[in-house]
Every structure is written in structure tokens, then in C-alpha cells.
């Protein structure tokens, strides 16, 4: 398995100041697969992506991408590695001072010496792939939320990356855009022969498309499995998450002092 693993996360610990975010995370993303990382808001999912991209350094453990330990790379090698990664940010993070065309062409212009005609053709192909051919002269402000997300998707795959990361690709989308974006993530992954990581808390949408799921809570992997295994799982946490139950292993109440005591009620 590990011979074909594109990304290997080994016992990664990370803390913002005194707040421990990740506590010994282990994950493996096999080549060509679409993996989801799920968990509640603020449980450290995005932090994992930032470790893969080399933005953050683990306090313990390591992340290996394509055989290289990310946090040991110098700036040049890291940048060379990042060119082989695409990332879709939470709300697209399109460059607002550029047109759709320039957004998609951005990496091609920055990292290649391709002539402008070829860049034009490539950009049109990418836009066509996400169904937005014809929007190239619009600015990001003129796009709807779902369209912006698709343009960002086209930008993320502009250089045909080997690894595509999605940070909450479904956040704030209407049901139709949701299906479209989900379908695109699957199709792009297979068409490019890439490996994809989706960080999300939208379980229903992602279970339709992903191959494998990791559940994270309190900075630890609490459950994992294929989509079928997850659906059939009897694990209390997974059940609570999948069916959106109010109380369970994740308590409804903030762990404060005893409320009854505060009110002076004797039970």
C-alpha cells in the first residue's frame, strides 16, 4: 500500500501556541483515489491540508508527499513540489483584480514559458471542462458562488497537478451547484489521474463521490473506512455524524461546570 501512496501522514502533532490541534494523525492517500477528511468545524481538517502544502510545520511526525518529507524541504524544492499540487480554497480565493481568464492562466504564466496562444487554448479547455466556457472575460465579482467555485476548480487543475486538495468545496452552495461541484471533483480526479483530498463536513454529498473517508475529532482520527463501510458503520461517532444526531459522543453541551449547581438546584 505504502509503495503506491502519494501522501503519507505519519504521527503528526501540531499546536497553535498552547492549543493542541493535531494529536498523532496517521493517514495514507493512495494514488488515484479520492479521499475525504471529515469532522466538525474547527477540528483541524484545514490544518492537515496546510501541512501537506508545507505552509505549517508539524511539531512531531512528518508528512511525506511523493516520497519527500515536506517540512524538511528548502523553499525552492517546496515551491517545485507545490507546482504539482492544486488547491481549492474555501470560498474559491479567486484573484479579484483579474478576469476569469487571467485567474485560470495565472499559474501557466507564472511557471511556464508557454506562448500566449497556447495558454489561451489551455485556459479555454479548462474552462470548458468545468462548463464555464464563455465566462473568460468576466471578473470574479460577476460570478455566482457556484460559478466562482468552478472557476477556482479550473484554476486549481490548471497545471494538471498530481495532488488536488479541496478545502470545504461544498460550503455555501445551492443544491444544484453542490451536485455539479461534487461530480466535477470526481471527474477531474479520474480524468487527470490525480489524487484528491476533500476536506468537508458535508457527509451526504461527499459519500456519493469519495473512495475513502477519515473522521477526525479532537485532533485524532476516530474512524475510517470506504464509503460503504461508513454507511454501514455501527460506530457511535460515525452514526452521529452521518445522521446528524444532536447528542452522542460529541456532546451537545459545552463541558462547563455543572449547570444545576449554578442554578442552585438540587437534583
Amino acid at each position, binding site marked *: 500500500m505504502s509503495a503506491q501512496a502519494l501522501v503519507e501522514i505519519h504521527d503528526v502533532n501540531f499546536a497553535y501556541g498552547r492549543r493542541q490541534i493535531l494529536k498523532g494523525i496517521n493517514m495514507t492517500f493512495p494514488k488515484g483515489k479520492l479521499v475525504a477528511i471529515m469532522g466538525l468545524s474547527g477540528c483541524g481538517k484545514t490544518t492537515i491540508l496546510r501541512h501537506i502544502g508545507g505552509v505549517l510545520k508539524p511539531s512531531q511526525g512528518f508528512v511525506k508527499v511523493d516520497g519527500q518529507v515536506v517540512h524538511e524541504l528548502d523553499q525552492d524544492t*517546496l515551491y517545485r513540489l507545490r507546482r504539482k499540487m492544486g*488547491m481549492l480554497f474555501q*470560498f474559491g480565493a*479567486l484573484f*479579484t483584480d483579474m478576469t476569469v481568464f487571467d485567474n485560470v492562466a*495565472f*499559474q501557466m504564466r507564472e511557471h511556464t514559458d508557454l506562448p500566449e496562444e497556447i495558454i489561451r487554448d489551455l485556459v479555454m479547455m479548462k474552462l470548458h471542462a468545468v462548463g464555464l466556457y464563455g465566462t473568460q472575460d468576466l471578473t470574479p465579482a460577476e460570478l455566482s458562488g457556484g460559478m466562482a467555485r468552478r472557476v477556482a476548480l479550473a484554476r486549481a487543475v490548471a497545471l494538471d497537478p498530481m495532488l488536488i486538495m479541496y478545502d470545504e468545496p461544498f460550503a455555501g452552495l445551492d443544491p444544484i451547484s453542490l451536485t455539479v461541484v461534487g461530480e466535477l471533483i470526481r471527474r477531474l480526479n479520474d480524468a487527470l489521474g490525480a489524487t484528491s483530498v476533500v476536506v468537508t463536513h458535508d457527509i451526504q454529498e461527499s459519500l456519493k463521490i469519495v473512495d475513502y473517508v477519515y473522521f477526525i475529532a479532537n485532533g485524532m482520527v476516530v474512524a475510517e473506512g470506504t464509503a460503504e463501510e461508513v454507511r454501514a458503520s455501527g460506530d457511535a461517532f460515525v452514526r452521529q455524524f452521518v445522521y446528524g444526531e444532536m447528542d452522542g459522543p460529541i456532546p451537545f453541551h459545552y463541558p462547563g461546570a455543572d449547570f444545576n449547581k449554578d442554578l442552585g438546584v438540587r437534583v
Partner: protein
Amino acid sequence: MAIVKALRGIGSRVINAVWRIGYAARFFFKVLFYSGMSFRRFRLTVREIFFSGVMSLIIILVAGTFVGMVLGLQGFETLKRYGSESALGSLVALSLVRELGPVLTAILFASRAGSAMTAEIGLMKTTEQLSAMEMMAVNPVARVVAPRFWAGVVSMPLLAALFSALGVFGGYVVGVIMIGVDSGQFWSQMQSAVDFKGDILNGVLKSFVFGVAVTVVALFEGFDAPPTAEGVSGATTRTVVESSLLILMLDFILTAFMFRGD
């Protein structure tokens, strides 16, 4: 106890301020270090010259003309008491070239272009555009910050020169055309009083220094802004306040060096 608390508050503020200055200095060197791209791909810089320089033209031209006209009027009123109306030209030109041109241009530039830079970069940070760039293996300091820095440094002296030139013109309109000071005396007194090296070049040097100061403050505040709406608006305000104060302080220091003695 209250005193201890107050002292502790002051102390932490001072430490914080020094910390920020150090961080800003490191930021400045980083901008210089990654400036290569701004020259290799000069279009990036040209684009920013358009947004900071050309877009500030109107305010600078109008302000310069009116400041010159006020100088002409006030200067005439004062000089008349000593019967030296003919010195009006040198008064207007010296005030503009040495002080008002560079200083007022820099303050206007800070509020027009500097605040825009801060808001733009702060928003790019808030909407994760800078992180996205970083993830695309493009250094945001080289791609976004450095071209804006050089655009500001190029624009400021040009704007200050235009301000002073228009100001002299405004002084001429009021002094010579409206009040009737002798045109020949106006110009000849001006020319014998204003030294190219001592006054004009020093004025250009001043505006260059102010340009560096304003853009560094503006870009740093944007880059350092907390990624929230309040964070960006606070940073924009700080840009205008900090760079205006910095301009006036630097002006005193530079003036003390340049114009003492003779």
C-alpha cells in the same frame, strides 16, 4: 493595584509596538530581497504605477494649484508690510519645493493610494488570495507586494514635482495675474533664491524617502491586517495615521540635515 495594572498595560503596549517595528523592518528587507520580479516583469510595476500614481494625479494637481494660490495670497499680504512684494516668487517657490510639495503630496498620497494599497492587500489576505498564491508556488511578497512598493517609490517624486510645479503656477496666477506683482521680478527673484541642488534635488530626495515610508507602512499594514472586516478597516485607518505622522517626523529629521546652516 490600579497603577500596577496601568503600568503593565503601558509596558505591554510599548513592547508590542517595538515588536511590530521589528517585524515591519523584516518585512521591508523581504520586499527589497524579492524585488527582482518587479523589474524582470516590469508590466506588473507599470500596472501598479497606474493605480497609485496616475489615479492620484487629479487630487495632487488640484491640491497643488490651490496651495500655490493660497501661498500667493498670504505671502503677498505679509510681504507687503515690509515692502518686499517682489520676493513673492521666491517665497512661494521655496515653501513649495522644500516643504509643502513633498510633505503635502506624501500625506495626500498616503490617504489616496496608501489606504487603497492596505485595503487591497488586507482583503486579498482575508479572502485567502495570498494563501492561494503561496500554495500555487508564487511568493506573494514578490508578486503582489514588491511591484506596489516600487510603483509607490517611483510615483511619489513625480507627484511631488507636479505638485510643486502646479503650486508655483498657482502662486503666479494669484500674485502676478490677479494682484499684479511684476512678472519679471517674480521669476528672477525666484530663480536667484531657489538653488537646483540645495532646494530642488533635496526636495526630490525628501519625496523619495516619503514614498518609501508611505508604501512600506501601507503594504505592511495590509499584510499584517487581521483577516476580518474590522481588521482591514482598522489597518486602513492605521496606514493613514501612521504614515502621516511618520512623514512629519521624517520631514523634521531630513530638514535638519539638509537645510541647516547656510
